[in-house]
């Protein structure tokens, strides 16, 4: 074990401080130290996307990032996507389209799709499929997920400031 490091960061618009070992991944810090368990561990090597969070506006596999790297960064997790006013349009569309079955991959898909729509508010089906290729889903066959994302773009639009 090496010495723990003090990290100051911002998670879901709140200032957060934590202690972690350098070897602890951001995913581990979120789940085990901060009890933010919405990001899931599916593979721990960047191949399933279940741990996707948003760092400085970009989707990131939190399993491939060290907790210490969060210093001074602005981070969003699935727990911060809905507001007291209600669900984010993507969350609503995932529910309406039955775009989840077991739901373990859902937080990762929503986080990644959120950045897609902030980057490219009107993607084609091809663009959505390409963007989401880093997120594995084993239940849905992707059909309803893709439709939910496309429907979010068509009907509601999303704000570009997250």
């Amino acid at each position, binding site marked *: *074990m090496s010495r723990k490091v003090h990290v100051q960061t911002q998670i879901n618009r709140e200032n957060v401080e934590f202690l972690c*070992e350098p*070897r*602890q991944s951001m995913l581990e810090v979120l*789940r*085990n130290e901060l*009890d*933010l*368990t*919405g*990001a*899931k*561990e*599916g*593979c*721990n*090597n960047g*191949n*399933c996307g*279940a741990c996707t969070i948003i760092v400085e506006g970009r989707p990131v596999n939190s399993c491939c990032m060290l907790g210490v790297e969060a210093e001074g960064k602005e981070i969003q*997790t*699935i*727990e911060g*996507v*809905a507001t007291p006013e209600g*669900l984010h349009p993507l*969350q609503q569309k*995932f*529910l*309406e*389209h*039955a775009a*989840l*079955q*077991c*739901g*373990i*991959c*859902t*937080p990762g898909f*929503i986080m990644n799709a959120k950045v897609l729509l902030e980057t490219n508010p009107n993607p084609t089906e091809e663009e*959505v*499929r*390409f963007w*989401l*290729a*880093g*997120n*594995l*889903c*084993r*239940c*849905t*066959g*992707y*059909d*309803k*997920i*893709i*439709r939910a994302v496309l429907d979010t773009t068509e009907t509601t639009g999303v704000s570009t400031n997250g």
Partner: protein
Amino acid sequence: MADGNGYKVVGTRPIRHDGVDKVTGRAKYGADLNFPDMLFGKILRSPHAHAKIVSIDVSRALAHPGVKDIVTSKDLPILSENILAEDKVFYKGHAIVGLAAVDVHTAEEALSLIDIEYEVLPAVTDVAKAIREDSVVLHQSLTTNTLGEKTGKPTNISSHVRHQNGDVEAGFAEADVVVERTFTTQTVHQGYIEPITATAKYNPDGELTVWTSTQGAFNVRQQVAGILDCPASKVRVVPLEIGGGFGGKTTVYVAPVAALLAMRTGQIVKVTMTRDEVFEGTGPAPATLIRLKMGATKDGRITAADTDLFYEGGAYPGSAVGAGANCMFAAYKIPNLMIDGFDVVVNKPSSHAYRAPGAPNSSFAAECVIDEICQKLDLDPLEFRMINGAKEGDRNPIGPRHGKIGYLETVEAAQTHDHYQVEVGNGKLRGRGVASGYWGNGAGRSSVNLTVNQDGTIMLLEGSTDIGGTRASIAMQAAEVLGIAAEDVRPAVVDTNSIGETGVTGGSRTTHATGLVAIRAAESVIEQMKEKLADHWEVNLNQVDFADGTFLNSDNQISFKEAARICSPVVGSVTESTTGAGGAFGTHVVDVEVDEDTGKVEVLRYTAVQDVGTAIHPSYAEGQIQGGAVQGIGWALSEEYVYDQKGQMVNASFLDYRMPTSYDTPMVDTVMVEVPNPGHPFGVRGVGEVPLVPPLAAIANAVSRAIGVRMTHLPMNPGSVLKALNKI
């Protein structure tokens, strides 16, 4: 449907009750529980495919700071070799030692400090080699079980099943065309995204609590209590949200180890597998070797089929060869039949259920041979299925007669679908394949408890864990009976202390069986409320009616909600071993394009037709079909366990075990044919399993037609297609 057959809730698409928790990240899955003094468990696994364990020395690991306890098979009250190996390991990844430490990194460090001396043995990881006389034998005590009779001779063939009717030789003599092929499929994994996990707590009074994600909490309780030799009443299993199962979470792997470590340390212990542990240490679907010969007359009637099925059980007996045999010809009338099925042990993880276990493998062979016969006879493959397809009263060729089934309806729907009407395209190597598939579906034990709240809303407790929306589909069935909205029934999956025994969420049984029990519980609620209202209205019970969500007699008429206040308290509780599962069929149509230079297969269009009986929540029924089809695309084209010469799996990651991504798949059109199952009040048939049965053959048939070469080996990866094209 809500718009046609008089249902108000059944057939609608409400938002699932557990949905908001899942899209906001609040739902608690297996690994999501944290406790302040929790220990983290890790399991040391065999690096060898086959070896004797000469000695285990844990002293260095035990001395490592932060390590709290270490257990081996000697510490298990009842030996369970696949939980912790005894004196031999039978596959790479076989669990040997469990330990608990203050954090996961310390636990991992300690694993490397455990000294095990092995005597490495030759390994056999291929069913074709394992059945040879000169093969390495895994278990000296294993002899072939042939319907209760044992041969007495050590072998890797653990059992032999046979189905025989008619006279196959006469049948082939009658045939105008006979096709015989040998097919192979590789080991594939369920691929659930959530790794296996369990967290255990033990109190000094002997109360054990296990939090886990499982397809069946009562199964976990039974297995944990069995291995730890404690009464079921002392074991409480709390099923957390489950991140996919597909059959793979119908047994236990780490729960007994977590429980044992919790008992010994007195602290809460969580054990979660890594992804490579999931691939190497849990039960995948078997690799198979299948020889199949089939004959037909020139007018397209099947005259005979003769097949040998060899299924890999993995390290221990128990492949799904029986189900493979039962399902493979269920769609057809075959007068002369011989099926020999063999369960074969090899040095791979002990095989386990994967969605329609056994059926995709055998159906791949059957449906490919049928396609080749169609080509030889120049018959449309769907027309061939109309000629030979089974309907109510026909026999599954293995014996039993079909009840009311909708097989031919699926074929007709495929024939008339736009997809089948348009040409597959030209210029490139394109092909269209079709195939059908069957799964018998299950019923069995389920329990539901309905509490009527005073405002007329309902708390529904159930024992069936919810993997893909069954809380919604079960609540909807109760709501239909009670005449209230789906949203007014709040379903919850509860722990083993809080509900009657319930079987696994598997075998496509839950919406049927637990739904049936929910209907019975709702009917019980209605009866109780009628009695109370009769009392309240001072009339005879037989003067109180219930219709369209309203209780009434000649003078009074009140809604269910009003009645709830008057009748409180009301609880309807039913536990039942249900029957009446209706077998179901699907027929899939798929178009592919093959890149002739690289051998890569692209799926251009996919249509899946299935008899779902009655779709309770059509979106989730469609979702099952779409998900099954895409798992089938993976199995057909890219997924396989790759082994090296030493029996080591070399691709135990989501990078190299290639499950389809969103960028590899098309939309999957679904057509739900509804031929209600008479064994269920609303006509429900199991939906989840059938859609993984047809895809392997449908895609193989499409590729074969595209390139003009019969494909008989899965996966049809680019290398094998290039070889078939004679490009390499």
